[in-house]
C-alpha cells in the first residue's frame, strides 16, 4: 500500500479534529460537545493502550481519571490559580497512584485484575465522596474555574472562548496520542502486543511480562489522568461520580463500541457515546438504556466494534 494510502485515515482524522469548531455547529453540534468527545476519547484511547494493545482489562481507570479531575480542581481552588500547574498536579497524582497500585496488582490476570482495579478505584471514590471539607463531598468541588493561560507574549482566554479551550484540549490530545502511537510502533510496543497475543510465548521469549504490563498500566493511567484534568477544566467542576466504577465502565464501553483493536476505535466509540448521550438525555432520563441497547447490538453483531467493520471491509 502506498504511504498516503496507509496514512490516509490518520490524516483525515487530524484534519477533521483541527477544523472541528468550524464544522460542528454546521451539523447541529457545539464546540464544547467537541471538546467532550475529544476528552473522553483520550480517556478511552488511553484505556485501550492497556486493553486493546496489551490485552489487560481494567475496570478501575476512573480512579486515575478522577485523580486528574480533583488534582486540577483542588490545585486551582486552594493552591495556585494556574491551569497548566493544575494539570501537571493532576497528571502526576494519577501517575504516582497508578505506579504504586500497579506494583500490588500486576501479577493478577483476567477477572481478578479487573476486580481489584475496581476495588482500588472505589477507595478513591469514597475519599472524594466523604471528605466534605476538602472535596465538597457528594456536591462535588465547585467555586473554581479554568484560568487563562499566560504564554509570556500573549494570554489565551480559555475560559470565555470555547474555541480556544477546544484547541488546548486538542494539543493535549495530540501529544498524548502521538506518544501512544509511537510507542505502539516501537520494539517496546511490540512486546505489549506479544503479551496480548500469547503471554506464555512472551515469557519464554525472555520478556519479563509483569514488568511490561506494569509499564503499560502506568502509561495508560498517566494519559487517562491527563484526560481527567481536561474533563474538570471543561466542566469547571469536579464530580465524585467521575471517580466511580461506572465511569470506568463507560470507558470500556467506548473502547469496545468503537473497536479496541483499531487505534482510532475508542475515539469513534467516545464520539458515538457522547453524541447519543447529548441527544437522548434531552429526550429522556433513561438515555443510558438506549446506549446499553446499542452497545449490546454492536457487541452481538460487530464484535470488533464500529471500526472493526470498516477495517474488515478495507482488508484485501
Amino acid at each position, binding site marked *: 500500500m502506498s504511504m498516503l494510502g496507509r496514512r490516509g485515515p490518520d490524516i483525515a482524522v487530524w484534519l477533521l479534529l483541527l477544523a472541528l469548531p468550524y464544522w460542528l455547529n454546521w451539523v447541529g453540534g457545539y464546540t464544547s460537545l467537541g471538546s467532550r468527545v475529544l476528552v473522553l476519547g483520550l480517556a478511552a484511547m488511553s484505556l485501550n493502550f492497556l486493553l486493546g494493545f496489551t490485552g489487560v482489562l481494567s475496570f478501575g481507570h476512573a480512579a486515575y481519571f478522577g485523580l486528574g479531575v480533583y488534582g486540577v480542581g483542588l490545585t486551582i481552588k486552594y493552591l495556585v490559580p494556574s491551569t497548566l500547574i493544575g494539570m501537571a498536579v493532576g497528571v502526576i497524582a494519577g501517575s504516582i497512584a497508578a505506579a504504586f497500585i500497579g506494583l500490588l496488582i500486576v501479577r493478577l490476570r483476567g477477572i481478578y485484575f479487573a476486580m481489584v482495579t475496581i476495588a482500588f478505584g472505589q477507595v478513591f471514590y469514597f475519599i472524594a465522596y466523604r471528605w466534605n471539607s476538602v472535596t465538597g463531598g457528594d456536591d462535588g468541588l465547585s467555586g473554581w474555574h479554568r484560568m487563562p493561560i499566560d504564554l509570556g507574549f500573549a494570554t489565551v482566554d480559555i475560559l470565555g472562548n470555547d474555541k480556544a479551550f477546544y484547541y488546548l484540549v486538542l494539543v493535549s490530545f495530540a501529544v498524548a496520542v502521538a506518544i501512544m502511537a509511537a510507542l505502539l510502533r516501537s*520494539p517496546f510496543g511490540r512486546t505489549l502486543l506479544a503479551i496480548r497475543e500469547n503471554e506464555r510465548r512472551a515469557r519464554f521469549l525472555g520478556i519479563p511480562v509483569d514488568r511490561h504490563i506494569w509499564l503499560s498500566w502506568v502509561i495508560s493511567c498517566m494519559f487517562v489522568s491527563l484526560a481527567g484534568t481536561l474533563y474538570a477544566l471543561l466542566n469547571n467542576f469536579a464530580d465524585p461520580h467521575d471517580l466511580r466504577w461506572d465511569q470506568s465502565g463507560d470507558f470500556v464501553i467506548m473502547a469496545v463500541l468503537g473497536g479496541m483493536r483499531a487505534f482510532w476505535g475508542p475515539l469513534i466509540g467516545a464520539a458515538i457515546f457522547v453524541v447519543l448521550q447529548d441527544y437522548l438525555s434531552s429526550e429522556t432520563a433513561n438515555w443510558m438504556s438506549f446506549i446499553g441497547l446499542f452497545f449490546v447490538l454492536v457487541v452481538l453483531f460487530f464484535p470488533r466494534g464500529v471500526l472493526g467493520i470498516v477495517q474488515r471491509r478495507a482488508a484485501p
Partner: protein
Amino acid sequence: MSLLEVENVSRHFGSLVAVRDVSMSVEDGELRAVIGPNGAGKTTFFNLISGFLAPTSGRILFDQQNITHLLPARRVWRGIARTFQVTEVFPELTVRDNLRIAVEVAAGYRLRPWISRQAAAEISARVTDLSDKGGLADKEDRPVGELSHGDQRATEIMMALALNPRLLLLDEPTAGMGDQETYNITRLIRQLHQDHRLSIVLIEHDMRVVFHLADRIMVLAEGAMLAEGTPQEIAANEAVQAAYLGEVA
C-alpha cells in the same frame, strides 16, 4: 564440562510423583532425545529445565551456574529457549512480526520506545534470514494463525532460534503432523544442529525422527529414568523394548 547438568530432580503434584530422581547431562553441541510412553513425565521434565515449574527437589546447572529457581525469562537470557507441545505463537501477528519480536528481544531492545533506522534495518535483515531458513519466506506477511500446523511450528522454532540460544528445548516438534511436514521439520532441526552446532534436547514420539536425529536418547517411564545411551544401545535394550518400543510396535 557439560552444558546442562540436571541432578536428581523430582517433581511432586500432591501425592503424584511426575518426575522421580532424574539426572541428565547434555554436552555442548549434542542432540539428545527424551522418549517414553504417555504420562512418563517428559513434559514435566522439560518444564523443570525451562523454568515453567520449579522442582520439588534436585538441582539444575546450566553452563556451571545453578539455575534451579531462576524465572523463565532469566533462563532465556542465559541461553535456554523452548517450544511447546501445543504450538505457542502470536496468532494475529504476521510471521514477520512474530520473528521480529523475538529478534528485538534478543538484541536487548525490548524496552526501547524508538529504534534507529540502522538498527531497524539490521533487525529486518535478521528476520529475513530466519524466515528464509525456516522456509517461511513466501508467507511472511500472513498472520501466523492462518498458516498450516507445520508452518506455525516452523515459526515457533525460528522464534526460539532468534534468541540465539545455546540450548534449544523442543517439545514434540512433529506432533500432529503429516509425513511431508514431519520430514520438513526433521530436516530443519538437523540443519540447525549441524550448521550452528546448537545443543538440542527434544521430546518426540515419532521413533523414525528420534533415531534419525539423536546422538543420545534418554528413556523415561513412570517419571523415572529407565535407560540412557546411543540409539543403538536403546534399540537393543530389553527393558526399553518391554516398556515402550514393544508397546508401540
